[in-house]
């Protein structure tokens, strides 16, 4: 809402020394957020009132150019002008050198079209007072020649640009804002809607409300003998322009002006085009309406319409119809001022994508006591400015419910604020906003004013009292919360996992979870794989990515490609977050009322309506894992780094991971590990399939992993097992065995471990050798075993015994031969 200060001052006597900026601050702290204070008419100097004495056309130009002689009150001046909308004798705005126009444009005498143009004649746009640039601004003829235009037209003004919250419909009017200003400064308020209206006798026009739930009141007035094509006066155009609306014609301008002034949207029908009584009803299925914007609209039975015998003629509260539109030849009009239901207007405006100044106001609630006064104001202006004749005939179909009464405990505002307010303060503040208050022992009976339909329950009144007393006057206290239990275990574990990966050189990314269906194909997963995206958005941000992710890898690979593209080629990234999978047996959520705790079964049904949202942790690496340096050459990130990444973070939360070879998209079939915790699958790691790296535009041999954070966290031991710490010396033995090259080292290691028995403290693979000495298709694996007993020093015989049984077990399981 844009409110010119000059207009505001019509309704409240603000002392002239109060700056607009200060008013803006007061309004902001009262809940009407002033986003800007615009200064209009600033930056104009040297523009004076002058009269056209004579003009002649400049020949030989593509467009009409006039060589104009002006009288600026003291002498004659000659200028070139490209406009033709003036005649000899017209009074105009003359930028007389040296002059300045808004935006800092300096006007000097200059040679153009073969003449020295001594300045220029200004358009409305050039002066910053309207959007009109079709011709020059023709001024009222009674202005003094030579006088300054800024002063003569009272151009200087300041406009408050206010963001209006949905609960403050009343502030979508100069009247509403002025009332807040008056309250804030304790000044009297002059209500523009305080006009005398004739008693309604139903004689203006026949109106029938068939949908009382959509329309609680309909006032109709009539006017005849109008010159509808007349232009509105410049003062009105100027106010409309400053308020952000475009002047169009007298009829439109007057209805808009009254709407801006009071907040009541109005609509005028050409009486000659109406057939039969005006009926307010719901649209019938299949009905259509051509609206003022010349669009044919199919109506819905929940659209509230104004109809006559011909069918719908307007979308109630949203937009009029083309068939009954006022034109330049209109002489008789029926003026509508009505109270339409906020929700109905909101739905209709949205369904037809037809937000209008009227619908904006109805959606937020229009003062339902305003219709008759607003109609009277408009009628008077039309009669005065358009030469029409209005009568006192008035139709007012009034189905308004009685104003509600709210019972308020006078101590409640203080209890909620945390600072006591005397009952008298509460009563005064409620009266300030227009409530009528009746004090009874221990209770106030409060009837909110007609323009505050948002005030329904006691806390609504509490807010009014506290905001007018000032939020900035509230004390600042800290409540004592009951003792808390700190972070939960999963919360602590997730932090540890993030820290571990960061310490291991992984950089965290937070990707948007949107993917396309094709991402599954690029990851080479089967059509039956649960990682085929299954949760689709109805209105995605981008139609190119309408699904929610089922794996973190596409987002990570995109971030990886972005980094590599920016020259960061040695990168390790990780992400932790949910993925989304449709539930096979999902049912729509139950419809539940607000303000009522749902039954346990209903709450469970709500959760069951949601897709599964399991947690994942994934990482990707490319380029060097160890950079080249003076210590030696670089080492590229490999499948082993990806697996170790998982091992590291699992180790950090006390979980041991078993690694087995697997074939699993999107990994290289020969370089992919399945990772288990006990029998539960944790996830996979390895080198990405060459076709996958190509499809995602990341470097070949990019490696990565993706695991379930839920499985990992569930597996993390709550109490870590306590080790047996023996002070006896260890015995260290090395065992090298030869096995088939295809035997996984983990199988050999496991066999040795199991064979070694309980004296084994630690086992470590320290060498792998394939080559001539061990024969084709074979490999040698060398392990160091650290043995220790809890109660004695081991003898050489005992150590030898362990070696024997370890090797025997390895031979039994995987055919290992001691080297």
């Amino acid at each position, binding site marked *: 809402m844009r409110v010119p200060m000059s207009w505001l001052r019509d309704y409240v006597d603000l002392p002239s020394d109060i700056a607009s900026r200060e008013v803006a601050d007061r309004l902001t*702290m009262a*809940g009407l957020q002033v986003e800007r204070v615009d200064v209009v008419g600033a930056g104009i100097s040297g523009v004076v009132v002058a009269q056209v004495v004579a003009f002649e056309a400049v020949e030989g130009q593509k467009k009409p150019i006039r060589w104009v002689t002006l009288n600026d009150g003291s002498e004659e001046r000659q200028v070139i002008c490209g406009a033709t909308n003036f005649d000899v004798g017209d009074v105009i705005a003359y930028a007389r050198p040296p002059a300045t126009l808004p935006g800092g444009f300096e006007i000097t005498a200059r040679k153009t079209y073969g003449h020295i143009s001594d300045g220029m004649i200004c358009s409305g746009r050039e002066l910053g007072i309207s959007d009109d640039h079709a011709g020059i601004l023709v001024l009222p003829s009674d202005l003094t020649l030579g006088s300054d235009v800024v002063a003569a037209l009272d151009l200087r003004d300041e406009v408050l640009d206010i963001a209006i*919250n949905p609960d*403050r419909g009343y502030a979508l009017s100069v009247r509403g804002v002025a009332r807040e200003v008056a309250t804030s400064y304790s000044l009297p308020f002059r209500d523009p809607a305080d006009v005398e209206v004739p008693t309604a006798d139903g004689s203006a026009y026949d109106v029938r409300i068939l949908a009382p739930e959509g329309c609680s009141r309909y006032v109709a007035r009539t006017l005849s003998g109008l010159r509808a094509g007349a232009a509105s006066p410049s003062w009105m155009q100027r106010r409309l322009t400053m308020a952000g609306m475009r002047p169009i014609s007298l009829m439109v301008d007057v209805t808009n002006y009254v709407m801006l002034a009071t907040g009541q949207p109005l609509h005028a029908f050409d009486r000659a085009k109406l057939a039969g009584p005006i009926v307010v009803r719901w649209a019938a299925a299949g009905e259509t309406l051509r609206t003022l914007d010349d669009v044919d609209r199919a109506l819905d039975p929940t659209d509230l319409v104004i109809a006559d015998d011909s069918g719908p003629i307007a979308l109630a509260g949203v937009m009029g119809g083309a068939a009954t539109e006022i034109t330049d030849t209109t002489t008789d009009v029926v003026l509508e001022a009505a109270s339409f239901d906020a*929700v109905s207007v909101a739905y209709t405006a949205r369904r037809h994508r037809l937000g209008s100044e009227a619908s904006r106001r109805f959606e937020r609630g229009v003062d339902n006591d305003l219709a008759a006064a607003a109609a009277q104001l408009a009628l008077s202006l039309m009669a005065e400015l358009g030469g029409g004749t209005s009568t006192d005939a008035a139709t007012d179909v009034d189905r308004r419910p009685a104003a509600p009464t709210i019972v308020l405990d006078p101590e409640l505002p203080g*209890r*909620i*604020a*945390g*600072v006591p307010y005397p009952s008298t303060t509460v009563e005064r503040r409620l009266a300030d906003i227009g409530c009528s208050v009746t004090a009874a022992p221990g209770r106030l009976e409060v009837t909110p004013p007609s323009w505050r339909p948002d005030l329904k329950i006691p*806390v609504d009144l*509490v807010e009014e009292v*506290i*905001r007018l007393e000032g*939020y*900035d006057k*509230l*004390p*600042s*206290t*800290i*409540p004592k*919360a*009951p003792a*808390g*239990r700190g972070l*939960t275990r999963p919360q602590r574990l997730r*932090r540890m996992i*993030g*820290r571990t990966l960061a310490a291991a*050189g*992984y*950089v*965290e*990314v*937070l990707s*948007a979870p*949107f993917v396309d269906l094709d991402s599954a194909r690029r990851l080479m997963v089967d059509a039956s794989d649960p990682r085929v995206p299954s*949760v*689709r*958005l*109805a209105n995605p*941000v981008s139609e190119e990515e309408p699904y929610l992710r089922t794996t973190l890898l596409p987002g990570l690979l995109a*971030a990886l490609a972005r980094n590599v593209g920016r020259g*960061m080629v*040695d*990168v390790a*990234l990780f992400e932790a977050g*949910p993925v989304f999978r449709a539930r096979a047996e999902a049912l*729509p*959520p139950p*419809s*539940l009322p607000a303000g009522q*705790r749902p039954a346990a079964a209903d709450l469970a049904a*709500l959760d069951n*309506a949601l897709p599964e949202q399991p947690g994942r942790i994934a990482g990707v690496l490319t380029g*060097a894992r160890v*950079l080249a*340096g*003076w210590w030696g050459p670089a080492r590229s990130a490999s499948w082993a780094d990806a697996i170790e990444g998982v091992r590291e973070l699992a180790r950090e939360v006390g979980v041991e991971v078993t690694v087995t070879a697997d074939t699993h998209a999107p990994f290289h079939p020969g370089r992919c590990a399945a990772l288990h915790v006990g029998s539960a699958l944790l996830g996979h790691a390895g080198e990405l399939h060459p076709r996958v790296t190509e499809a995602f535009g990341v470097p070949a041999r990019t490696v990565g992993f993706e695991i379930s954070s839920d499985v990992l966290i569930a597996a993390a031991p709550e109490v870590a097992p306590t080790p047996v710490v023996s002070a006896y010396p260890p015995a260290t033995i090395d065992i090298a065995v030869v096995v088939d090259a295809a035997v996984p080292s983990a199988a050999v290691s496991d066999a040795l471990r199991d064979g070694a028995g309980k004296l084994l403290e630690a086992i470590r693979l320290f060498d792998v050798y394939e080559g001539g000495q061990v024969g084709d298709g074979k490999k040698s694996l060398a392990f160091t075993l650290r043995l220790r007993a809890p109660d004695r020093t081991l003898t050489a015989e005992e150590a030898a015994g362990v070696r024997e049984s370890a090797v025997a077990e390895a031979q039994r399981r995987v055919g290992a031969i001691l080297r």
Partner: protein
Amino acid sequence: MSAPNDPYDPKEVAALSTDELAAAQRAALAAFEAATDLDQLAAAHSAHLGNKAPVALARRELGALPPQARADAGRRVNEVLTALTASYEAARTGLEAARDERVLIEEAVDVTLPWDMTPPGGRHPLTLVQERTSDVFVAMGWEVAEGPEVEAEWLNFDALNIPRSHSAREAQDTLWLDPPDGGVLLRTHTSPVQLRALLARGAPCYVVVPGRVYRQEALDATHSPVFHQLEGLAVDEGLTMADLRGTLDLFAESMFGAGVRTRLRPDHYPFTEPSADVDLLCWVCHGSSTEPGAEFCRTCRSEGWIEWGGSGMVHPVVLQSAGVDPDRYTGYAFGIGMERTLMSRHDLADIRDLVEGDVRVTTALGREA
């Protein structure tokens, strides 16, 4: 060499003569002094204090002396031995010290050489700021609540007193799952988690909810369809708007430093009544840049206050939706944008820097505790 039973003849044991001993001592001292390294000193030691050194030989002769002569000669020999040993030890200590010093100098390295074998990792600044803000409240006894990102319409809207006709539910604001009227959406705020917490715990309830939320918005410099919030909810007997203010003040101080407080400004949210916007006193200029003639403040654009979030007293309908009696309990809630907090802290102009995963941004900003 004399036999023990030989008659005493001082002339035959010249080695014990005063002159001989003095000569041996002089020669030994000279040799020790002349040694310039430990090898030479070892050779001198073996020549002058070894088994075949003159002093050693002289000492061996002592046994042949008659008792009356042995005491005197023995004393002289010992004096020489003591002197020579002390002299040798002094020389050795000196030479060893010199050697050690030389070796340590030779072993010196260039400690400025880099050892940056692995490119550094780091956690995302948004993760860290969520942890940090959560910790402020955990320290006050609050707990951290979590909930799903895909949420039921009832929890995201209805239960929060957001009317059916509210424009926030429209497709231009909210991302709905297919089918569009299926009542399932990407949560538009973390408030449904507040409700879940209240449903699960009942009153009293003090929780803070960090998390990712979604709006139907195209990504540009200042908007992202995916962003992060931190919401707080306190429900208890007798909680007031003054408590809300105090909690926000403490929160602001812990995030932005001493003296940074908040300002409440009336606003409208369906789920709170009264409702207030939260402004933060500019933590850079503390409001001083609004004084006439003061230097321009980039952080608050010389407005003195920075818009930080929304807040208010929990609407009775919301409490009722969770089965909490609004006549007995009151509550307050607030929500803060994490991106906004970070962008303000670090003077970041483009939200995309936080979204795109550029490692330069994360490793630079993901370092705060």
